[in-house]
């Protein structure tokens, strides 16, 4: 599987955090084997960008964040699903192209990192594409 090297483009377009409010939050990605990786996400970027910058496995993000490929599918931990909110209509449509979609499924390019998501836990599926 070809993975888009999002790191370079992310650095190129890098989010510029504003002053005042916290600019970094902790996000934990749990892979399909149960291994957890906790990384820092920048407020204003997306959960998908956070994953790519930190080499999180099982997030392909083929389209680079355009909500056009369904290869950044995650399951939001039940404690966090209210805070991350529901998928938009467009995102629901794209989720039709993901596998094993559950009620807590999201495309993580559509979850913007906000201060209240500090501690967010998402699980990644075994197969994206």
């Amino acid at each position, binding site marked *: *599987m*070809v*993975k*888009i*090297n999002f790191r*370079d*483009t992310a650095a*190129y377009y890098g989010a510029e955090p504003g002053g005042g409010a916290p600019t970094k939050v902790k996000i934990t990605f749990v892979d399909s084997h149960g291994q957890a990786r906790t990384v820092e996400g920048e407020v204003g970027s997306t959960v998908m960008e956070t994953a790519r910058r930190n080499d999180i496995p099982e997030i*392909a993000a*083929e*389209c680079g964040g*355009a909500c*056009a*490929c*369904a*290869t950044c599918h995650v399951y939001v931990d039940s404690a966090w699903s209210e805070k991350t909110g529901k998928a938009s209509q467009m995102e*629901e*449509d794209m*989720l*039709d*192209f*993901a*596998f*094993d*979609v559950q009620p807590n499924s999201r495309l993580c390019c559509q979850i913007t990192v906000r201060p209240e998501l500090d501690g967010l836990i998402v699980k990644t599926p*075994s*197969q994206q*594409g």
Partner: protein
Amino acid sequence: MSHPNAAEINTDVVIIGAGPAGLFTVFELGLLDIKAHIIDILPRAGGQCSELYPEKPIYDIPGLPLVTGQGLTDNLLQQIDPFGPTFHFNEMVETLASLGTEQAPAFRLTTDAGKIFNAKVVIVAAGGGSFQPKKPPIPEIDQYEGKSVFYAVRQMEDFRDKDVVIVGGGDSALDWTLNLEPIAKSLTLVHRRDAFRAAPHSVSAMQELVAKGKIAFKLGQITQVEGNEGQLAAAMLKTNDGTIEKLSCQRLMPFFGLTMKLGPVADWGLNLNENLVPVDTEKFETSHPGIFAVGDINSYPGKLKLILSGFHEGALAAQKAHRYIYPDKKLLFQYTTSSTNLQKKLGVS
């Protein structure tokens, strides 16, 4: 733009991939009197731009503050039209053989449609690889693929009098539901939700068939298959409330969209680095003289996967391609603004 049927096609350049990098390379080659044939596995030009985000705005094309993926593709097609490129869609280059020498390269390419191309230069503009159907994570499904599990219909007759299960909620799933219903023995459409991102008239036609009892619609997903020696006997449907239902069927068609796979590029003997093709930054030539790589598929220090990078790379590759194709001609650098020679080629003089 014609679709020649001749078995062998002789050309200066074959470009593999009709995305923005491949398309603009046609322009740069054309200014240098170099003719190109373009091969793409998709049914239309544009690559990721038309396949992944035709309606989405792009903001970083120089001189175009905002353009959609389809808009950019249409503009590029208009821009290269004076050079009369020949497109070969729905085809994948399978083999690439090198027949020439370092000074005078020559290549022979074959596609999965059986076409043969003889070219002096090959430009790989394959982006993230070729778009191929996504295969669902059903255990052992690969044993049934091409025999009773299909991701595309090649022969409709193969579905006659069969119990068919189609999975998905997009245009492909709905179109094939409507097309196969008249000839299948039974047809069941499986989708995870009672909403469809397909053309509204297809959705209403499908719902009418369900209402008339001609097809079945089930909410859920296929998690397992049963059968023997590639021949399907049943598919296990996991409904949204978690119960399992066994659907007897001899044909299964999952439609989960496309994904990018490197594909045969890996078999052409090029140096590869993490599925990318390393090139120099003077000519964007690969380790093999006469084979160039432009756009997202190449790699070099400082590479940015931006469309504008692909444009620049195509322009420089064309300069070196000229030396292979016209070894005795001196290349004069000219501007389209001032050169009547270039303006003639563009049909504006």
